[in-house]
């Protein structure tokens, strides 16, 4: 018979919510809020740098829309989530009217991947900020 392990109680949201929320909005902001200034600076540099290069390569932002098949729909929604995960850089880009159509070309394609990649790097930073906030990490 398997032994049931006791579930750890979920940490209260007021412990990690601000760090994760600010970290999403401003890349590196969660670490800054938790007084990890050096790491905050590195994360901000990496995420913002990748995002800016994505823009300068004229990458495309994904839209949450259904495609003709399941794979296209998954790519559209997944890409959109990756874009939104960048936080303020994504919001500013949309508010300032950046609209790059999806055109063929390796550089544009790299740009699109950089824009999504920046958001995914920010997700890693958010998970780290969460771990620090709840005391799992220093």
């Amino acid at each position: 018979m398997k032994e049931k392990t006791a579930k750890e109680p979920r940490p209260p949201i007021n412990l990690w919510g601000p760090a994760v929320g600010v970290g999403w909005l401003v890349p590196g902001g969660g670490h800054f809020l938790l007084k990890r200034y050096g790491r905050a600076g590195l994360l901000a540099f990496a995420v913002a740098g990748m995002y800016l290069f994505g823009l300068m390569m004229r990458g495309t932002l994904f839209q949450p829309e259904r495609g003709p098949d399941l794979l296209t729909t998954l790519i559209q929604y997944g890409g959109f989530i990756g874009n939104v995960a960048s936080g303020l850089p994504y919001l500013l880009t949309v508010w300032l009217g950046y609209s790059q159509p999806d055109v063929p070309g390796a550089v544009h394609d790299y740009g699109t991947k950089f824009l999504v990649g920046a958001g995914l790097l920010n997700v890693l930073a958010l998970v780290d900020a969460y771990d620090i906030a709840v005391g799992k990490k220093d």
Partner: protein
Amino acid sequence: MPKVTLSHFEAALLFAFFTSIVLGVVTRKTDRERGVYGLYSFGWFLAALFGLGWLMFLGNR
């Protein structure tokens, strides 16, 4: 916003650079370990880049 045109190699190098920074920052416990892991990740990205590059070159002959 200026437009940049990068080669495949430059774009992959840039991707490796930014990703290695984040991987180094979030995966280890001390600053020294973070720096070492960041360089280690970057080294593996480069190895994969050159390895796959050679593989494609030889496979295309």
